[in-house]
């Protein structure tokens, strides 16, 4: 079979890239290693009858992606729900979206009064990123007018924010969330809630510079803190809808197909070789696998300039998030429709991160959990529920050696202990617990170091620095090879964001 393009990976980015290419008349095949599409939005059956998605973040579909690939089949997007943070005494405090009355007045009336202004201002900042995320990143040597004009328009928009917002935007982005929270709030609980969102999937703790950028990144497309909207039809509805659009345009999707190698001749791709020995020819390959796996794993080293190879090996992935999926008998409280952060102080967060610096699992980890079955009852048998916990910090590479059964057991116990603080008798309701360490996530989802970010969202790995400095425009040094996953700009959680930009670069 002859194709114009091969897309590696059937997550939202890969499916959007494929649909975009097919929309311009290309014959496209999408190759997915797993048995189902969806990437990490796909729900996995972790014990018979119980399915759960890995991610607790709905992500955001930029309008430019929705225009190119109208994923209306995903169903309407659900109304925002507030996220919660657990107080020291185990009670749950609501972090409202925007101007709804906050109920943490009893913790701090001053912070409650400041909250609407904080979420409104940061939504404006997130909207700037949202605009930026729909354009290829400009670099210092960008000269093409077509690239510069939209950015100039964006720059003008930033200036239109007015002096106060603009200087604040520039000032805040490189800050640590600890400094920002200390400057802004007085309640330790509110600070901890904001800080937890800012260290998401980073190895750093809240005192690290640049964590504010990460906070705003995950607010892009949201009305407030942690309030991105899920599609009504399921956690993987977006992927299914993108696949449907693609199929309608003639895209072929093959699952259970593992790519062994991207084949290259004379510095140009010729297609891919599969693990089963088959070869597929195509002059375009868009890989949504992470940059390390794509460039160091799927491309033979002789095709890569050693300097570029070095830059790729220097990408900081630093998987440090583990996931525990629980099958339970009892229905969790309604608050668990959205992620509940179980850490009540920034010092606890910082101490949890300290361990990771030395290659250890946190003694008292930061845990966030939610119950997808409250939103989508079909994920669990009738009357049963699932609870999914994300845990930081569990370094991919433990100093003590490979992840052992003891490590995994200890991890699960720590997570269960944290949840028991807010859900009394939690342990009794658990039927089954399934732990995914970063190592397991790597094996199961194919992302190096189990880092769903495909590269930490730190200031030195964003925009024109993503995936590696000088190669932020999707085209890789091998002709016909493009990177279209979260490892490219705009990064994780922007559904189809990198995929569409990679496809457009490939069409040029």
């Amino acid at each position, binding site marked *: 079979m002859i194709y114009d393009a091969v897309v590696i990976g059937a997550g939202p980015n890969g499916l959007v890239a494929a649909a975009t290419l097919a929309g311009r008349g290309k014959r496209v095949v999408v190759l997915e290693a797993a048995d189902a599409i969806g990437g990490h939005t796909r729900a996995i059956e972790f014990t018979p009858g119980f399915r759960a998605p890995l991610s607790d973040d709905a992500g955001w579909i930029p309008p430019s992606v929705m225009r190119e690939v109208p994923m209306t089949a995903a169903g309407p997007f659900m109304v925002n729900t507030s996220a919660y943070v657990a107080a020291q005494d185990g009670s749950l405090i609501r972090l409202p979206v925007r101007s709804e009355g906050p109920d943490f007045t009893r913790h701090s009336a001053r912070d409650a009064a400041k909250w609407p202004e904080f979420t409104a201002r940061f939504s404006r900042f997130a909207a700037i990123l949202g605009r930026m995320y729909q354009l290829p990143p400009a670099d210092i040597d960008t000269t093409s007018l077509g690239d510069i004009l939209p950015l100039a328009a964006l720059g003008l928009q930033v200036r239109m924010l007015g002096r*106060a917002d603009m200087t604040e935007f520039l000032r805040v982005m490189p800050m640590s969330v600890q400094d920002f929270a200390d400057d802004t709030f007085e309640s330790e609980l509110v600070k901890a809630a904001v800080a937890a969102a800012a260290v998401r999937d980073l190895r750093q703790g809240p005192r690290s510079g640049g964590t504010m950028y990460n906070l705003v990144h995950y607010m892009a497309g949201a009305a407030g803190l942690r309030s991105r909207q899920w599609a009504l039809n399921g956690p993987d509805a977006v992927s299914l809808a993108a696949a449907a659009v693609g199929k309608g345009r003639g895209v072929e999707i093959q699952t259970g197909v593992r790519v062994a190698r991207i084949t290259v001749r004379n510095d140009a791709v010729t297609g891919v070789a599969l693990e089963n020995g088959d070869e597929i020819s195509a002059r375009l390959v868009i890989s949504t696998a992470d940059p390390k796996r794509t460039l160091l794993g799927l491309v033979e080293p002789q095709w890569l300039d050693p300097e570029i190879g070095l830059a790729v090996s220097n990408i900081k992935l630093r998987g440090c998030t583990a996931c525990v999926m629980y099958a339970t008998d009892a229905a969790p409280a309604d608050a668990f429709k959205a992620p509940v952060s179980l850490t009540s102080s920034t010092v606890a967060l910082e101490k949890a991160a300290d361990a990771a610096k030395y290659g250890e699992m946190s003694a008292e980890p930061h845990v966030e959990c939610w119950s997808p079955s409250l939103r989508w009852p079909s994920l669990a048998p009738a009357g049963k529920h699932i609870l999914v916990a994300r845990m930081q910090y569990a370094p991919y590479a433990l100093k003590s050696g490979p992840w052992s059964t003891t490590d995994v057991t200890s991890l699960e116990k720590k997570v269960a202990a944290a949840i028991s603080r807010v859900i009394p008798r939690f342990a009794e309701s658990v039927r089954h617990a399934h732990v995914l360490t970063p190592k397991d996530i790597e094996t199961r989802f194919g992302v190096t170091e189990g880092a769903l970010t495909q590269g930490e969202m730190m200031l030195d790995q964003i925009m024109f*620095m993503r995936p590696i400095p000088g190669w932020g425009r999707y085209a890789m040094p091998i002709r016909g090879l493009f990177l279209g996953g979260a490892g490219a700009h705009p990064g994780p959680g922007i559904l189809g964001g990198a995929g569409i930009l990679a496809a457009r670069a490939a069409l040029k």
Partner: protein
Amino acid sequence: MPAPANRFDALVIGGGHNGLVAAAYLARGGKKVCVLERRPVLGGASVTEEIYPGFKFSVFSYVVSLLRPEIIRDLDLPSHGLQILPLESTVTPMDNGDYLAGWADWDETRRELVRHSPRDAEAMVEFGRLMQHMAMAVKPILGMVPPDPASMAPSDLMGLLKLGGHFRSLGAERFHALYKLMTMSSADYLDEWYEFDTLKATKSASGIIGTFLGPRSPGSAYVLLHHYMGEIDGAFRAWGFQKGGTGAISEAIANAARAHGCEIRTDASVERVLVNGETATGVVLTNGDELRAPIVISGLDPRLTFTRLLDPRQLPTDLVDGVSRYKFRGSSGKVNLALSGLPEFAALKHDKDLMARAARGAFSISPSMEYLERAYDDAKYGQFSRNPYMDIVIPSMIDPGMAPPGKHVMSVFVQYAPHNITGGWDDAKRDAFGNAVIKTIARYAPNIESLILHKQVITPADIERITGLTEGNIFQGELALHQLFFLRPVPAWAKYRTPLRGYWQCGAGTHPGGGIMGASGRLAALEILGQ
């Protein structure tokens, strides 16, 4: 009306090096200038004092490298007493009894490094070249009044264009390297180059000095670069001693200022700035004297400049808010020792010549990256480091006049000693801190305790009490990205001006700030002179 003797064109509050540089430039520009220093001794944090008979100490700041060459030239400082004696080596004792040495001589350093890691010895050449390029890339920015990106004024737009042009002229590769230095942690940055842990630790130490960051904290790579910007006789990254201690640098600048007719008063503590409407008109001293001038310049840090010398109610609230959230966070202390003889470092004991040579340079207590990071962890949670990072020099080895014959002065820069130590600093904590320092040195130089004639322990609280520097921060505020360039000290007031007509700032709390650099004082003076 004050007596004619108390009327000037310009008054400079604070006789630290930046205040003196500003005064010297203004006097050179024809202004009648008076500098007012609260202490009996000039220099702020660059002072030499005989705190124990016969032993002279650079009490706070102790080495120099960053002093801008154009200032040395413009003010002809060598003829006023500036004499920098080069620091020849840095030796890091290792926990396995070995050591790592870096010498002034490039080849010798490379040979030494080959012993530990041939790969790193090779990388060193290219790393050195890149850092020199980076220092050169930053140089024009150090000499530039920061444009305000939110302003539509032609001068600001021109400044931004110039800046953009400068970055483009670097080319993509160097611009990316610079961007990395601005955003990364020194540990991550060095990990990309080197493998030998002790080398990375010793190099990354430059990234934590004077800041409340650990080597793994993003932002520390910029502080690393800041310490690479120094030039001595045109050679980048050279550090040295001033003959007679850092106080002699202040004296040299003061002499240059006096030569241009500037008056300098010590024991002259400014109570507050006199304001008429929205214009500064002079100052009143704590003894009640009034001095008048249409230009009043504060060399003090932003908090003192705006909220102690003035009534904050005279200022716009966003400025006052900005100053209140400006991060000082002193993190370093100092231990000054008078010694009856030369300490003996166990790692060098086998070689007397080597020990003698090394004693003319610095000793860095930075055996591993984890050692530094754990020192930071202690400080994060409100304690001084049990095993601190130290930069140790013995100035009397190079400048014998600092101590009686056969005896020595030792200067120990220590991190971390957090200003906000749990429960606050008191005498008992100062003693405990001093003891932790001596105990740690003794691990590497076992005979140190038997040599101590006198010990001066300085905590950030002491730095604040003696020099006035808020929270004892040696840079007048952290060199963090959100407090640099057009954000230093606060947005919209980063061009040495203040909302009061005639009131100016020239301390290290303004761009580019930090170290004995003098650039803030010079740029402020040039702004005032309209150049």
